[in-house]
C-alpha cells in the first residue's frame, strides 16, 4: 500500500511556477507566428521573474516536503535565486542574438525554463533519486541548447560531445547512487547520514565507493579536473548565450547538490572526502588557470577560466562551515554576474558565421565603445579578484573559510593561481584598451543585450561595495 505523502505547497510553489510556465509556454508557442518568437522569450522572462519573486518570498523559510525528498532552506533559496538570475540574464542576452544568427525558435526560451527548473529541483533535492532526475532534466535540455545552432557544424559537434560525456557521467552517478542505496538501504540524504555510523565491513566500503562515483558524476557536470575535458570544446562550439548560461547556472546548481551530498549525507565521512576534494580543487585550479593562460581563443579562455573558478567554488564544501557556505553563495553570485557580463561583451561583438573567437577582435574596443570596455573591465577584474569588485570579496571569503578549516596550503595555492589568472584576464583588458589590430568587427547594442549587460555589471559593483547583506544569511 502506497500512501501519498502530504505536500507542502509553499515549498514547491517555485517549481510549480517554472514547470507550469514552461509547459504552458510550450503549447502557447505553437500559436506565436515564426517571425515573432521574441514574444516567447519575453514570456519566459516573466515566468523566471515570477519564480524569482516566489524565491524572494521564501527568504527565511525552511522546511521539507514529499517525504523529505525536497527541502527548502536559506542556502537553497539563495542558490536558486542565483540560477534564476542567470536564466533571466541569459534570456536577455539571447533574445536578439538568436535572430541575428537565424536560429530564432520558440523552443529556446522553453528549454531554458526547463533547464532552470531542473537546476532548482537539483538545488532543493534532499534525495539522491530526485538529484538524478533533476540532473538528467537539466543535462538533456543543455545538450539540446548546446546544439541549438544546428546545422552549424561546431554547435552540432559541441552538443554531441556534451551528450556523450554527460551520459557517460550519468552512468557513474547512478552506479554511485546504487551502491549507496545498497549500503544504507535509502536514497534520502538524512537517512543515509543516520545510517552512516552503523555501517560495517563491506557495506562501509560500498558507501565510500558509491560516494566517490557520485562525486565523479557530479564532478563531470561541474567540470572539475580530471573530468573537465569536454568544457572548452562545448563552450567554444555552443551558441554564446548558451555557453554563458551553462557556465554559471548549472555550475551553481551542481555545486549546491555536491555540498548537500557531502555535508548532509556524508558529513561523517569527512575525513575521507575532504582530502580528496582538496586535491581535486588544487588540480582544478592549476589545470584551469594554466590552460586559460595559453589560449588565444577568448571563448576557450573563458571555458578554462570557468574550470579554474570551479576550483575556488570547491573551497565551500571543503571548509564545511557556515563561513564556507556563506562564501559559496557569495562566490556563486559574484561569479555569475562577472561571467555573464564577460559573455555579454562577446555576444555584442559576434556576427553570424564567426567561428574563431580570437583575442585580436577585442583589440581597440576602448576607442569604439567605452561602455563595452567598462563592462568587460568590470567582468574581468571581478573574475581576477581585484577589488573593489564582487570577485575580490568572494575570493577572500573562500580563502578565509578554508584557512579556518585548516587548509593553509589551499589558501596559498588559491592565491598563486589567482595571480596566474590575473595575467590572462588583464592581458585581454590591456588589449581592449590598446590600439585596434584587425578590422573592426560589427557591434550590436540592442536594448535587451544592453540591459542584461548593465544588470550584470551593476551586480558586480554592488556586491563588491556592499557585500554584507549576502555574506551573513546563514
Amino acid at each position: 500500500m502506497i500512501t501519498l505523502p502530504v505536500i507542502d505547497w509553499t515549498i514547491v510553489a517555485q517549481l510549480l511556477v517554472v514547470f507550469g510556465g514552461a509547459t504552458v509556454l510550450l503549447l502557447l508557442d505553437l500559436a506565436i507566428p515564426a517571425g515573432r518568437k521574441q514574444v516567447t522569450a519575453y514570456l519566459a522572462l516573466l515566468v523566471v521573474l515570477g519564480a524569482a519573486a516566489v524565491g524572494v518570498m521564501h527568504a527565511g523559510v525552511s522546511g521539507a516536503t514529499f517525504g523529505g525528498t525536497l527541502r527548502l532552506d536559506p542556502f537553497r533559496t539563495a542558490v536558486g535565486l542565483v540560477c534564476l538570475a542567470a536564466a533571466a540574464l541569459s534570456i536577455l542576452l539571447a533574445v536578439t542574438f538568436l535572430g541575428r544568427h537565424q536560429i530564432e525558435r520558440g523552443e529556446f526560451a522553453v528549454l531554458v525554463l526547463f533547464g532552470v527548473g531542473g537546476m532548482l529541483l537539483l538545488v532543493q533535492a534532499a534525495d539522491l533519486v530526485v538529484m538524478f532526475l533533476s540532473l538528467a532534466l537539466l543535462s538533456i535540455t543543455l545538450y539540446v541548447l548546446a546544439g541549438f545552432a544546428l546545422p552549424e557544424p561546431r554547435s552540432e559537434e559541441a552538443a554531441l560531445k556534451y551528450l556523450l560525456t554527460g551520459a557517460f557521467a550519468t552512468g557513474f552517478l547512478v552506479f554511485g547512487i546504487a551502491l549507496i542505496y545498497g549500503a544504507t538501504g535509502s536514497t534520502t540524504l538524512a537517512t543515509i547520514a543516520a545510517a552512516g555510523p552503523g555501517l560495517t565491513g563491506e557495506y562501509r566500503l560500498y558507501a565510500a565507493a558509491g560516494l566517490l562515483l557520485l562525486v565523479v558524476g557530479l564532478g563531470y557536470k561541474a567540470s572539475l579536473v580530471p573530468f573537465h575535458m569536454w568544457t572548452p570544446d562545448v563552450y567554444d562550439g555552443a551558441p554564446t548565450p548558451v555557453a554563458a548560461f551553462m557556465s554559471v547556472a548549472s555550475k551553481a546548481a551542481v555545486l549546491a547538490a555536491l555540498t548537500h551530498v557531502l555535508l548532509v549525507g556524508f558529513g561523517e565521512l569527512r575525513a575521507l572526502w575532504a582530502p580528496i576534494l582538496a586535491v581535486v580543487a588544487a588540480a582544478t585550479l592549476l589545470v584551469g588557470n594554466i590552460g586559460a593562460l595559453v589560449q588565444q581563443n577568448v571563448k576557450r579562455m573563458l571555458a578554462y577560466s570557468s574550470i579554474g573558478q570551479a576550483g575556488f567554488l570547491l573551497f565551500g564544501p571543503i571548509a564545511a562551515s557556515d563561513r564556507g557556505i556563506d562564501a559559496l553563495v557569495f562566490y556563486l553570485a559574484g561569479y555569475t554576474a562577472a561571467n555573464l557580463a564577460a559573455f555579454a561583451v562577446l555576444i555584442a561583438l559576434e556576427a553570424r558565421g564567426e567561428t574563431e573567437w580570437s583575442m585580436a577582435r577585442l583589440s581597440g574596443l576602448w576607442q569604439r565603445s567605452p561602455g563595452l570596455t567598462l563592462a568587460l573591465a568590470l567582468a574581468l577584474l571581478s573574475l581576477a579578484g581585484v577589488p573593489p569588485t564582487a570577485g575580490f570579496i568572494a575570493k577572500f571569503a573562500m580563502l578565509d573559510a578554508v584557512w579556518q578549516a585548516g587548509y593553509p596550503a589551499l589558501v596559498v595555492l588559491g592565491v598563486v593561481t589567482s595571480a596566474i589568472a590575473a595575467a590572462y584576464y588583464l592581458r585581454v583588458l590591456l588589449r581592449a584598451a590598446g590600439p585596434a589590430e584587425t578590422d573592426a568587427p560589427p557591434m550590436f547594442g540592442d536594448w535587451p543585450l544592453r540591459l542584461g549587460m548593465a544588470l550584470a555589471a551593476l551586480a558586480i559593483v554592488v556586491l563588491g561595495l556592499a557585500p554584507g547583506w549576502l555574506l551573513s544569511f546563514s
Partner: protein
Amino acid sequence: MNQIGFPLVSLAIALPALGALLVWLTPASQTRVARGFAMLSALGALATAVALVARFDASQAGYQLVDSVAWVAAWGLSYTVSVDGISLWLVVLTTLLTPVSLMASWNAGGAHPRLQQALLLLLAGAMTGVFVAQDMLLFYVFFELTLVPTALLIGIWGGDDRRRAAQTFLVYTFAGSVVMLVGIVGLYQAHGVQTGIYTFDLATVLASLQLGAVQLPLETERMLFAAFLIAFAVKLPLWPFHSWLTTAHTAAPSSGVVDIAGMVIKIGAYGLIRFNVQLFPQAAAWAAPAIGVLAVIGVLYGGWIAFGQRDMKRILAFATVSHLGLIVLGIFALNPQGLSGALLQMISSGITTGALFLIVGMLAARRDSRDVQHFGGIWGQAPFLGSIALVMVLASIGLPGLSGFIGEFTIMLGAWISPVLGWTYVSIAVIGVVLAAAYLLRMFRLVFMGPPREAGAPLRDANTLESLMLGVLLVPTLVIGLYPNALLLMMEPSVQQIAQQIGQTLASR
C-alpha cells in the same frame, strides 16, 4: 565620526575620485572644463592634506582623525581611515604630486586627455587610501586599486614596448600583492581564534599583539612576515625583484606623467613599516640582516647599472632602485633614526626623482630622444631647466642643505648604531652613495655642460607651466633640507613608539 566631527581623511580620498568622475562626465570637446575639474579636485585634496597637518596632534603616537563605518559587520571588516605620524607626510606628498602630474599631462598633450586625467586622479585617491587605511583589508583594497590605473597609464600612453611593460607590471605586482592576502587571512584568523574577536582593524590587532592577547608561534610569525614581505618587496621593488620597475619606467610615457604619479611614491616601503616592522617585530629582527644584505646589494647594483646607461629614464629608474635599497636599510635598522630617515628619504626621493623624471620628459619632448649623447651643452639655451636639474641632482645625491642629505645621513646613522645591522652594512652602502653622485653628475654634465652639439636645434627653456611644476617641487626640496624638523617633529611620537616596541621585544628575547 572623529573628534572634529568632519570626515577630513575620507575627503582626501573622495575628492580625487569625485574629480575623476567629473572629468569622465565632461564632454570631450570641453578640454578646459575637464582640466578645471581635475585641478580643482587635486587642489582640494591638497588643501585637505594641509588641514590634516594643521589638525594633527604632534604629541600623540596613535591613529588620529579616525573615520569609521562598518562594511561587513559579520566579518569585523570596516571602512576605517586615519592618519598617524608615519602616514601624514606621505599623504601630503601624494596630494602635492597630483597637481604636478596633472600639469605634466597638460604639458605633454597626447591622446584621450580626459581619460588620462581621470586615471591620474583615481591613482591619487587610491594611493591616499593606502596611506590612511587603518583596516587591513581596506589597505589591500586600496593597494590593488593603484594597480589598474597605473597599468592603463603605461599601457595606453607608454612608449614602444608599452603593452609588454604594462603586462609585466601587472603580473609582477599583482602576484606579489595576492601573497599579502595570505598574510592578512592568517593574521585575521589567528586574532579571531585567540581572542574571539574577528577584526581587520590594525589598531586592535596591534594592541592584541603587543599586550600578548594574541601569541603567534615563532614559525607562524615568520610565515606571516614573509607573506607581507614578498608583497612589499615586489612593490618597492627590492633587489632582485626590480626588473618590472625598470621596464615600466622605460616604457612609460616620456613626459614623466606616470613616473611622477605612480612610481615615485613608495607604497611598498610604507607597507614594510606599517605591517612587517610594526606587527612582527620579532620576525623583523630575525630577518633584518638578510634583508639588509638585499638592500645593500640593491644600492650597489642600481648605482652600478645606472652608471652604464645612456637612456636618461633608465638612469633614473636604476637610481630609484638604489634609493629604495637605502630606504629599506633604514627601515630594517629598526630604530628611531633609521625609521625617520627612511621616511624622510621616501619623501625626498619622491620629490627629487620625480622632478628629474619630469625634466627628462621635457628634454625628450624637445629633442625626441632620451639618449644623453643627443644632448650636451644646453645650459646656455635652457638655464632654468639646467639650474633646477642641478638642484635636484644635488638634492638626490645628498648635498647638505637640500632634502636628500638629512634622510641619507639619518639612515646611515640608524643603520650604524642598529643592533641588528651595524657598521659593515653602512660602509658598503656608502659606496652606492658615491656611485649615485657619479652617475647623476655624469648625466648632468653630459646633458647640460660641454660644447653645444652641432646637430641639435636650439633648445627652448621651460615655459610657464613647466616652470610652475618644477617650482612646486623645488619648495619642499629646500624646506626639508633647511628645516627637516618640521617633518620630523610630527613623525617623532609614532616612530618612537614603534622603535620602543621593537626594543622591548628584542630585549625580552
